[in-house]
């Protein structure tokens, strides 16, 4: 929509650098109070991860390679999940140019999850609990969701807001690299870079101009804000 917006948060993920270590998945869950469903439930399909590492095998044994692609909500500019929600629980935020989820509006039709081509959304199948002393780890900046509510990656909007408020208090703009979502912060190979795509000089904008840049299922016209840098391979496809 308004491309002239001051902020347009985006993310670049370098697939060459991703080694599938799952640190981002862990960090995301801790930052965002994502419930731990347990091994069996995750295998059943009741896992809650906002971020998952897709792993594809390429080639035939013994010339086999594992390819990894961390996939989270792509914060689409024209998100398929938004118009189908009957109660505006998910909509396009003009200020941050991302796709936001209002937990307290959600009534749990789960239509958004079906219509998301990235399968980025997770549903609270039960009231998950954080037994003592795990409740102490809960992040006070993030709502704890109850059963029957849809949730998804928010680009750690609580961190974006905090950086904006700090900057405003000090009378300056948010600096490049000041906002880091939990996944980017925890990535040991720094494969995930986050920043303002509206600023052409930001690191994320420069990386996004790479010849390796691609967007996931871009032909659907969803205008994703996550840009992948294609991985080369030993065999160079």
């Amino acid at each position, binding site marked *: 929509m308004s491309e002239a917006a001051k902020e347009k948060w985006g993310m670049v993920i370098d697939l060459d650098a991703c080694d599938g270590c799952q640190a981002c998945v862990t960090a995301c869950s801790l930052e965002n109070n994502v419930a731990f469903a347990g091994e069996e*439930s995750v295998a*059943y*399909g*009741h*896992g809650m991860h906002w971020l998952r590492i*897709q*792993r*594809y095998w390429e080639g035939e044994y013994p010339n086999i390679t594992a390819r990894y692609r961390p*996939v989270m909500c792509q914060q689409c500019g024209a998100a*398929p999940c938004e*118009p*189908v*929600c*009957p*109660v*505006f629980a998910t909509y396009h935020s003009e200020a941050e140019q991302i796709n936001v989820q209002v937990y307290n*509006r*959600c*009534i*749990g*039709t*789960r*239509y958004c*999850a*079906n*219509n998301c*081509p*990235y*399968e980025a959304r*997770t*549903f*609270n*199948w*039960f*009231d998950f609990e954080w037994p003592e002393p795990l409740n102490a780890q809960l992040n006070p900046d993030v709502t704890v969701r109850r*059963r*029957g*509510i*849809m949730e998804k990656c928010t680009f750690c909007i609580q961190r974006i807001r905090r950086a904006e408020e700090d900057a405003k208090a000090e009378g300056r703009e948010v600096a490049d690299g000041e906002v880091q979502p939990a996944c980017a912060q925890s990535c040991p190979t720094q494969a995930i870079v986050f920043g303002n795509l509206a600023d052409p000089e930001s690191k994320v904008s420069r990386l996004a101009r790479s010849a390796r840049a691609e967007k996931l*299922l871009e032909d*659907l016209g*969803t205008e994703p804000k996550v840009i992948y840098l294609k991985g080369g391979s030993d065999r160079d496809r």
Partner: protein
Amino acid sequence: MTANIPAIPLGDAHHDAEAEYREEHLMLDPRPREEMNNMVLESMRDKSLSFWVTAGVLGMLVAVALFGAWGYMIANGMGVTGIRRPVFWGVFIANFVFWIGISHAGTFVSAILRVFKAEFRRPFTRAAELMTTFGLAAAGLYPLIHLGRTWRFYWMIPYPNQRWLWPNFHSPLVWDMIAITTYLLSSTMYLYLPLIPDLAMARDHSEGWAKKIYGWLAMGWRGTEAEFRHLNTAINIFAFAIIPVMFSVHTIVAWDFAVSKVVGWHSTVFGPYFVTGAILSGVSAVTMVLALIRGTMKNMKYFIRPEHFDALGKLVLIFSMSWGYFFFNDFNLEWYGGEAAGHAVMEYHTKGPLAWIWYGMLIANLIIPWATLWNKNVRRNPWAMFVIGFIINLGMYAERYMIVTFVLSRGRMPFDWGWYKPSLVELAISLGSIALFLFLYVVASRLIPLVPVWEVQEGQLAHTLRKIGRATVISVSELE
């Protein structure tokens, strides 16, 4: 005592032909009004032990299987169902589409056949309209049942509220809610209007409490010329107006799927494909209900005759063919020019672990009706029609089940493929909604006259036999 209906002019030498006609066609077999009133009232008042047992068992099933299991699910969360990523919709939505399909029976039979003056409709329009209203009652529960937070369902309703938030009119679910509300209200009114004269008839034949209640429901009906004029005008408006609403309701249900970005759902043929399927399953269900009514209720063998099953059987055959046409449209284009993601969906149908459901659907919806319904003797046999109707409804249910769950199992990204199996809770709720439909129907069949007596009388007034040359033929007059 003679009927107020002109008896069929009796020819001299053609008693045989006439007797045959009378036996075959209800419209040519007139009975005096009071006799017919008593036949209908007797079938309504006949509450045998088996009625109480049936109603009791169905009522228990509704309480335990439907509301019990639903309550358990509300208390614990949607996790007690078999719904799992990436299949976020399961049998609840399949049931929803199925019951909406059943609800097409009444409108189709009573409105379309009324508009086209198909006379055979007369004795069972009400039986079919009841299916619409109760089918919608069962269907309307599912959008509530399947919500993660059922207790917040009213947030979908457009009303000024403290949150300053109106519903999202972009959402097909809001279209759905409004379309179903429209259809439920209008089909209930369409059921009620032609019922008023029969309620007045029941009032005049009752005593005590029953008289009070029927009198209250009949609203003071006497049957003056003006009352009939207003009633008939309204019934005509309804018959014309409810047909596009019926088409739109199932089209919107189809659009719930078709407007999405999901491969296997995003299809332009879904609207008419769903409407045809709905009428196929609805008309088949009418034959089932008529066979049950005829088999279990008193005097119904007079009203529901083989000619009616014959006519409905032809409709079922036509709609089975139309369904096959739309199905092949959907299938062929994906097979020929579809992209890889579409082919994955298709292979899951035809070669996947659950492919037997797909082949079963083809057998039930196409092979069985095509192999049997061309035969007049099959069509005229109520219990054969019951079995065929049952098989077709199984096939149509399988179709909805696959559209919901198979398609969602095969998304665009193979890493996230999954599958689905309903849990016990979902099966209980599904069973409970069948019980709800039957319970409402069985109870209603003992509370209101199931046959529109005044419409049958009007039809019999319009039908006579006349001679052309040597032949005796049926002649129908336009009374309006």
